[in-house]
């Protein structure tokens, strides 16, 4: 009965985490989408069901990368005696969801236009905006045609007396979204993400693209790529790494981050230089080159499991030295 309870709780926790995480991600994606389409002084359409659904589909795979970590963190703090069944449940659910649901997500996104470059919204006149290194005051805008006062705003020329000012009349301009997808450069100025945050999200987006590519390029490739989930699940070996639960969370956070970073580096061709000459060195090296991601993830699994076992032995010895501690953390 206790086992069944643990399994059911884990199933519930797993699905709640997946659903809540994806819904929250979809909601934030919708807000971001709304702000990228917004132009100052215009009307904001926030509640767009299509964008929300796209957001859920886009956020689901990255969330799946972190779900095992969050479930392991829950196991760290609960003193359940059935941790093994909990881990098995999480592993089965994570692997199954990753292998079967992520490719479906990829196909659904390919059908929708979530990742396509969207047309920018029409700008509003009456504001100063910076475009192509020059400042514009838009007197009027009709579609792609505008009247404006254009002037240079180069700080290095601050000592010059007059500015080069030009009256632009009925000029065609191909308004584009900026690097972060904002229609209005003014909104882009306000909402440009900090470099660290943008690098993190761009990294996730790049990895997601590689994930979908792997999912659509045959079962073997998808199997190789999916070994990342095994490596992520291997952090379960560290749930009892220390007497202090915070230290155990530290190891789980660290192992998950490292696994994701290493896999990201592999998908980003970081190891290509290292693997370049492998195919000419014989069958073994060719095999290593072909299955590098699989080997790397298996190495991570072995390293984490060994660390977990060592920690457990060390902690047990330590506790037996201390004496009568009931060992609820182990």
């Amino acid at each position, binding site marked *: 009965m206790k086992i069944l309870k643990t399994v059911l709780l884990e199933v519930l926790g797993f699905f709640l985490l997946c659903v809540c995480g994806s819904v929250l991600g979809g909601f934030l994606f919708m807000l*971001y989408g709304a702000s990228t389409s917004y132009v100052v002084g215009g009307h904001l359409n926030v509640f767009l069901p299509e964008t929300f659904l796209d957001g859920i589909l886009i956020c689901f795979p990255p969330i799946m990368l972190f779900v095992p970590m969050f479930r392991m963190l829950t196991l*760290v703090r609960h003193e359940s005696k059935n941790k093994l069944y909990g881990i098995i449940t999480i592993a089965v659910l994570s692997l199954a969801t990753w292998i079967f649901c992520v490719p479906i997500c990829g196909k659904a996104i390919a059908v929708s236009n979530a990742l396509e470059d969207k047309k920018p919204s029409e700008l509003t006149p009456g504001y100063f905006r910076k475009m192509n290194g020059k400042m514009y005051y838009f007197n009027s805008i009709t579609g792609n045609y505008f009247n404006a006062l254009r002037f240079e705003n180069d700080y290095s020329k601050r000592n010059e007396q007059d*500015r080069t000012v030009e009256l632009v009349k009925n000029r065609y301009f191909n308004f584009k979204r900026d690097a972060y997808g904002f229609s209005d450069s003014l*909104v882009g100025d306000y909402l440009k993400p900090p470099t660290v945050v943008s690098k993190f999200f761009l990294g996730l987006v790049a990895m997601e693209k590689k994930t979908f590519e792997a999912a659509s390029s045959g079962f073997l490739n998808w199997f190789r790529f999916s070994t990342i989930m095994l490596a992520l699940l291997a952090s379960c070996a560290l749930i009892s790494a220390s007497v202090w639960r915070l230290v155990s969370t530290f190891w789980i956070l*660290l192992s998950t981050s490292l696994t994701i970073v290493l896999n990201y580096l592999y998908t980003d061709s970081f190891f290509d230089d290292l693997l370049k000459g492998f195919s000419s060195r014989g069958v073994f090296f060719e095999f290593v080159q072909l299955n590098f991601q699989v080997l790397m993830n298996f190495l991570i699994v072995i390293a984490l499991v060994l660390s977990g076992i060592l920690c457990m032995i060390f902690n047990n010895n330590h506790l037996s030295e201390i004496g009568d501690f009931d060992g609820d953390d182990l």
Partner: protein
Amino acid sequence: MKKIISAFLCYAIFASIIAFCVGFFNFEVAPVPQSMEIIYKFSNGLIALFRTIPSICFTGFLLGCSIAFGDPATKTEHRFSPELGKVLKKLLFMAIAVTLVISLCSLVFLPYEEAKQQSRRNVPFILNDYTSLTLKYMRNKEPETALRYVDRALAIDPKNENLLELKREAELKRKEQEIDELREKSISYAETNLNEAKKLPDLFDESKMTVKDMIAKSREHLEANDFFAAHYFAVNATRLCKADDLGEASYLAEKAWEELQKVQMEGDTDGMIFFRKKLAGYNALINGNFVEAYYVFYGLSQEDARKERDPDVIRYLDLSQKRLLDSYFFIDETEDLSTFENVNNLYFTLPHAQGGGYDIILIRGVTEIEGSGGLVRYLRGLQIYSFDTSNNLLYTVKTPYAKMVAVKVSDLSDNDRRIYASDPSTKMIPEIKLCSLSRSHDDEKRLPEYDFLKNENPRESDKPTKFFWPIPYQNFTMIEHSFAGQLHLNPFLTRKLSDKAPDYGFSREGFSFAMMNKIFYPFMTLVFLIFISIIAWNYRLAAHAIFKFKWVFILPLFNLIFYFVKLAVEYIIRIMNFVFIAMAGVDLAILAGLAFYAILLGAMILTFLARKGD
């Protein structure tokens, strides 16, 4: 509680020292004079500290709570226990104190220190400018001005040998010049009647005089054969008086004028030529031609020492200068100003006060005059592009320098007040003077260049040399500050400006957004701290377990995680703030924000209270 505070302080102090040292000893070569190097590095250390203080505090809080919660966890058997309530009460006090520290560091000290550091980076350029100006004035034999600049440079870099040498040189030259001047003066005084030279005449200021006072003054001066003064007061009295006094004032004016005409007829002596020149200047002054009057009296004052001390010359030079400065300013006021500008490349729009349409205003540089209380500014490279309601360009105007003076709305005429300051809360508006004149040469002027495009024969009234801008002076200074990257901290003023922002060509959302981010920063921090205390409870150190030193090494990673998570959460909150503002306007957005944080804080508190012990 003691455990939390001691663990928190231990980590916070230790990590703060490290953060400070990383900033202090970074590899950047300090781009400042040697005497400022330590201050520069110290400031670098402070900036590094202020940037990392939120994540340091979060980590310290996690550490403190995680260690301290071991004991209460043994007494907390079920959810929502009174024991946990007590813990929460103390925890909230501490969280609020930490929030205060983080908010002060992030919202006040960090921007302040960054601005200071930026100005320190400009010091070498400023020193260079001061040195060039000192050398320039030394070459121009103006050691007094040269000393002023070298003193300013020494105030920044007091131990600079070159500057000290320059100062010694300038002092020497000033002493030499003083001796020369004394020698010249003694000769000049010998030629002049000493008593006359010592006695300075009363300067006229009729602004506080009544008509009766003016008539009395006029009569007094007439009796003393001072016909200029008699005529001056009588004419001013006729301009202001009612029918009762008009007869007497007119009589006195005519009488004084007759006497002046009589004197003028008497011969062609040097004295008479001087008198006629004074009369010509006086005539120009009375007829409102202040520029001509100023140059006549200024010319007379420069002819010789006796004329310089002539009471009429002194009085009417003073009066004509005062009247002239109502509409113009002197070119020498703007000398060397471009070096010390507060803001560069400013731009904004202003709706026309009357008849619709708007102006686009571009300014190359703004200099606030020290000691003017921010009420006088010089605008370099002012360009105005005026459009009608159909967006057709009406005219453009350019001037190398304009002077901006804050004028009290209460001093404006009723008509001007109605046109330029219709909002009763406006206290001051800017007055812009476009023309500048030489102090000594009537042929050197800087006049605005008007271009009326299709209209080849504009009226003179279409080309004003001074005008008011229909913008509260405070709003202009806030726009200026926003260009300097220092948004006003007062949320009420920012709120007020945000409503007007579209009139000035800026987005309402921009100002409101910056304000909301600042207002809600402490709330976000507080929620974050309570969330951390929940994590700390969940992953606490057991009551009987002993803290091992090696665990300290996990803290930098938590610090890093908190640094990143805080940035990410802050960014998400920024997007939410922006969407709220764009969707519902700033007032509703603030209310929604308050409700959001109240709910979030409530949920966090409930979650904390729902914890149970071992």
